[in-house]
């Protein structure tokens, strides 16, 4: 069981139905397609309380009907990419 909680970091972003591009204040960017726009949309804002990663994954599974394991892997991958540039915060 993954007990981490997640929210956005300080970020600039633009999202379309197909893609989301996220930038840190230092100008580093992550451009992600697929489920990434839906994941970004569900992340609480930088000012707000984080949500449990498991809750985020369950919401995505319910919305998109994809297999849980695949949604979990995709979600963690993109969250870690955003975390690497400071645009997502994953708390243990």
């Amino acid at each position, binding site marked *: 069981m993954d007990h981490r909680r997640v929210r956005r970091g*300080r*970020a*600039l*972003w*633009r*999202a*379309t139905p*197909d*893609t989301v*591009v*996220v*930038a*840190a*204040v*230092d*100008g580093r*960017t992550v*451009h992600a397609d697929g489920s990434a726009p839906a994941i970004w949309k569900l992340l609480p*804002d*930088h*000012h707000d309380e984080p949500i449990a990663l498991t809750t985020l994954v369950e919401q995505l599974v319910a919305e998109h009907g994809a297999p849980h394991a695949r949604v979990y892997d995709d979600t963690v991958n993109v969250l870690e990419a955003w975390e690497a540039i400071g645009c997502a915060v994953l708390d243990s």
Partner: protein
Amino acid sequence: MQFSTRNHPAVLAAGRHLLPGTTLRADPIVLESDDIEGVRAFCRADRLSGLLATAVGDGAVVVEDERLTAAIVEDWHAALEACVVLEALLVRVRARLDDAAIRWMATKGPAIAHLDFEDPTLRAFGDIDIIVHPDDWRRAIDLLDDDALSRPHFHHYVDRFGKGVTVLVDDMEVDVHRRFAIGRFGVRPDMAECFDNTTQFELASESIPAPSAAIRLLHACFHATLGGNRELRAFRDVAQIALGRPDAVAEVWEIAHRWEVESVVASAVLEAWDRLQLPNNLDIAVQARRIDINRADARALRVFANEDRFRRQSLTTLGALPWRNRPTFVHSTWMMSREHRR
């Protein structure tokens, strides 16, 4: 850019797409494969790729080859990446200006994208524009322009009569505005008054100051009438703000009357309505047609419409200045030219 590409029906369809407050019905435009490269290039240059991609997605523009549709969408996504990189720069510029207690506002691209478009992905931009309060101008230039000391006469000219300077911050361009334009119409607005009633939008959890809707509309009109590269996007901005912010329209006429720049607003609105083929019975277009543009204003507008050289545009300032200030203008221009030639 080819004249035919600029006027391609698909470019016009993109420029009109999702304009607020209107129901513009038109048959779908079929974008032939042979025309796509030209239309894509024009839309990339004029920051219309998002509107073109959305028009294609909504069926207002029809592209039959899926690979070409994907290429149009790629243009949009590339533009979005540039926007967030520039907004990151704006947040860093904000920190430097705020630390120095300099009064400033973000204008044009990011401000219009966040405050005047329901979806900011539809308004792309290629640089950052800020307006600095006149009383803080010198300090802002000292802070942002590494070359400030090497061109004192240029900076004196800009402070007294000029539009602004382009500075490099982290190797990216920031246009720092002292005024909305050079020339006859540039010296008329009271730029300090623009700071009396401001708004803001949020970037990276920071509040970014921006002009009121009326001043954003006025600036869009100045750019559309007097700026360089007066292409469709500049006129879309005018229509977007005018139609989306009807409360700002009455205010902009009042301000424009007081600052004697009604001819700039009227010209921008009439050209926007003409280029975007909008209904002439909308209030702002009716009001624009009622403005009586005097001969001196019309002469100055022609200089900008023809995109004449900087010197000709700058010289339109003379007629707008009180006699006592004209020698200062001539001297400042002459000193700046000498400095430029060195």
